[in-house]
C-alpha cells in the first residue's frame, strides 16, 4: 500500500472538486472506524464515482494508479485501466515499466500478470520478457503465474531456442522444482518432440537426476511421463538401471513405484506384484493404494 507522504487525498484536490465520491462512511464514528487507510477509503470512493459516470480521462488514469497501489486485487481497477490505455493511447512500454513493481510486490496476483500479458500482446513485441520472467523466478522458482506467462510468451512468439537450456539451469539449481520439470516436458513437446534421439538424452538426463537425488517426486514423475515415448530398447534400459539402483540399496517409494509401473507395462506380473507388496509395507500413509494395486495384479 502507498505510504507516500506527499499523496494528496482526492477530496482535497481542486481538479476533482466536480466529483462526489460514493459509498464512503463519512465521519460516523470515524475515530474508531478507520481500520484501513484514509488513502484507500478516499481513492475507492472516487473510483466508484467514475465507474458510475463512465468518465475516461487522464485524471481517471492517475486515479487507477492509486487504486492499484492501494489494492491490486481489485480486478475492476485493471479492466478500467486497460480501457483507459486504449482510449488515451498511452505508451505501452511505460505501462510495462509500471508493471515491474506491481508484479514484484504482488507475485501471486492473477490480475497483474494478465495485465502485463495484455500489454505485450498489444505491443506485439516480447523483447525483454523472458529475462523479466527469469528474474521473477529468481524470487520464487515455482511461481505458477510466472511459468504460465512464460509458456504464453514462448508459444505466442515461437521462442523455443535455448529454452531447454533454461530448464537445465533451473533444475541444476533445484532438481525438486516440479514447475521446471513440467516446463521441460512442455518445451520438448513443442520444439523437437520426443524423437528417439531426444528420448536417449532425456532418459539419461532424468536417470542422472534420480541417481543424484533419489527422493524426488518430480523427477520420478517426469521419468514416468516420458516412459510412454520410449522404444522397447529404451524401456529395457530404464528398467535395468532402476534394478541396479535398487539392488545397490538405494531405495525410495518413488523408485519402487516406477519399477512397479514399468514391470506392469512390460508384462512382468510377478515382479510387479512383489513391488506392490513391498510398497504396502513401506508407505503406510498410502497402504490402501498399494493394496489396491496388488489386488488388481492378482486379479489379472
Amino acid at each position: 500500500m502507498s505510504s507516500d507522504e506527499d499523496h494528496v487525498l482526492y477530496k482535497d484536490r481542486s481538479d476533482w472538486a466536480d466529483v462526489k465520491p460514493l459509498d464512503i462512511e463519512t465521519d460516523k464514528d470515524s475515530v474508531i472506524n478507520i481500520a484501513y487507510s484514509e488513502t484507500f477509503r478516499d481513492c475507492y470512493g472516487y473510483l466508484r464515482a467514475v465507474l458510475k459516470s463512465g468518465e475516461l480521462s487522464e485524471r481517471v488514469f492517475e486515479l487507477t494508479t492509486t487504486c492499484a497501489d492501494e489494492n491490486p486485487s481489485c480486478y475492476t481497477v485493471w479492466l478500467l485501466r486497460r480501457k483507459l490505455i486504449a482510449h488515451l493511447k498511452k505508451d505501452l512500454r511505460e505501462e510495462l515499466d509500471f508493471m515491474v513493481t506491481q508484479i514484484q510486490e504482488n507475485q501471486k496476483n492473477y490480475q497483474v500478470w494478465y495485465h502485463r500479458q495484455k500489454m505485450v500482446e498489444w505491443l506485439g513485441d516480447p523483447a525483454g520478457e523472458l529475462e523479466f520472467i527469469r528474474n521473477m523466478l529468481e524470487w520464487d522458482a515455482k511461481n505458477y503465474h510466472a511459468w504460465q506467462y512464460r509458456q504464453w510468451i514462448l508459444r505466442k512468439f515461437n521462442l523455443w531456442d535455448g529454452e531447454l537450456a533454461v530448464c537445465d539451469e533451473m533444475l541444476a539449481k533445484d532438481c525438486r522444482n516440479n514447475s521446471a520439470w513440467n516446463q521441460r516436458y512442455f518445451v520438448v513437446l513443442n520444439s523437437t518432440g520426443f524423437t528417439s534421439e531426444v528420448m536417449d538424452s532425456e532418459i539419461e538426463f532424468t536417470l542422472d537426476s534420480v541417481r543424484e537425488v533419489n527422493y524426488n517426486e518430480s523427477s520420478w514423475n517426469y521419468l514416468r511421463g516420458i516412459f510412454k515415448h520410449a522404444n522397447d530398447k529404451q524401456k529395457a534400459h530404464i528398467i535395468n538401471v532402476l534394478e541396479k539402483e535398487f539392488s545397490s540399496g538405494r531405495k525410495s517409494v518413488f523408485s519402487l513405484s516406477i519399477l512397479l509401473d514399468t514391470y506392469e507395462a512390460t508384462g512382468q506380473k510377478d515382479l510387479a506384484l512383489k513391488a506392490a507388496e513391498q510398497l504396502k509395507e513401506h508407505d503406510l500413509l498410502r497402504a490402501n493404494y498399494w493394496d489396491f494395486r496388488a489386488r488388481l495384479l492378482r486379479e489379472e
Partner: protein
Amino acid sequence: MAYPLKDIQIPEDANKELLIAKHTKYLYDFAENKDSFEYVMTEHLRLSGIFWSITALDLMGTLRDFNKEDIIEIVKSCQHSNGGLSAAPRLDSHILYTLSGVQILVTFDALNAINADAVVDYVCSLHQKDGSFFGDKWGEVDTRFSLCAVATLALLKRLDAIDIESTTNYILSCMNFDGGFGRRPHSETHAGQVYCCLATLSILNQLHHVNAEQLGWWLCERQLPSGGLNGRPEKLPDACYSWWVLTSLAIIGKLHWIDKDKLSAFILACQDSDGGIADRPGDEVDPYHTNFGLAGLSLLGENRLKKINPVFCLCQDVIDRLKLKPQILDP
C-alpha cells in the same frame, strides 16, 4: 524409507475438537463488521466471500436466516445488463462471481431474484470455439472458468445451452503426463485445477476419460507426514488444498487412499481458538479457509456437520433439492 519433505509440525497444544460455536460467531462477526480492514479489502471478491461464509454456516447447521434478505438484495444488485454478476455492485461482471452469486441463491432457494436466462446468455457468450471459457470479455482462459461456467449452467438446469463435446475436449487437452490437470494445456498440474477439471467432467458425465488410477496416486502423494495435503510437490500443506485434493479423490472414488484420521487432525489443528480456520496451524484465519476446512471435515465424515457435495461444494441437501446427480466414480 523416510525422506526429507517440506512440511510442518502440528503443535502439541493444537485444537483437537471441532469448534462449531466459535466458527459460527467468527463468521457472523466478520459479516457484520463492515468497517473492518478485512471486510473492506475484500470488496473485489464479496460474492465469493458471502458464498464461503454461508456454505460454512450451512454445513454447521447454523445458517438460520443469516441476513438472508439482505444477501439476496446484494446478489441482485450485482447482476449487469450483460447477464453476468460482479463481485460487488459497480465492479465488472466475471464468471467467478456469477457462479458465487448462483451458489448463494440456490442455497437460499431464491434463484428467481435474478434474471437466470440472462445469466445463461452471459455464460454462453464466454464459450470459445475450442471449448474453453473466458473469465470475462477480456479473454483470460483458465480451467477454473470452465468449472464456473458448467456449474452455473447445471445449477440453472441449462446445460443444454453449451456444446458438451468441445467443453470436455478442452478440459482433456489440459491433462498432463502425470495424470493431473493445469490451468491451460501443458500448464503444471495443480491440485486446485485438478478439482476444477474433475468437477467439470463430473457435471458433464465424462469422468470415464480420466486415468483415475494415475491421478489418484498423484493426489494421495499430496499427503504429508503432518497429515495435511499440499497442492503441488514440494509445497507446504494447506487446509484449502486439503479440500481440493480430498474432493478430487472423492469424485474419482479414491477417498480411502489417504490417511483420513491424520488429515482430520491437521484441519482441526488449523482452527483458531477464537473461531475460524487458517491455512496452517497458528496462521491468520479467513472465511475461505474456514469454509474449505469444514467442507474437508464433512467429506471425511465428521458427523456434527451436514454432508457436502464434492462437486458443487454446496450442502448435499441443496443438491438433492435441485435433483442434481453429478457423476462420482465407484471406489
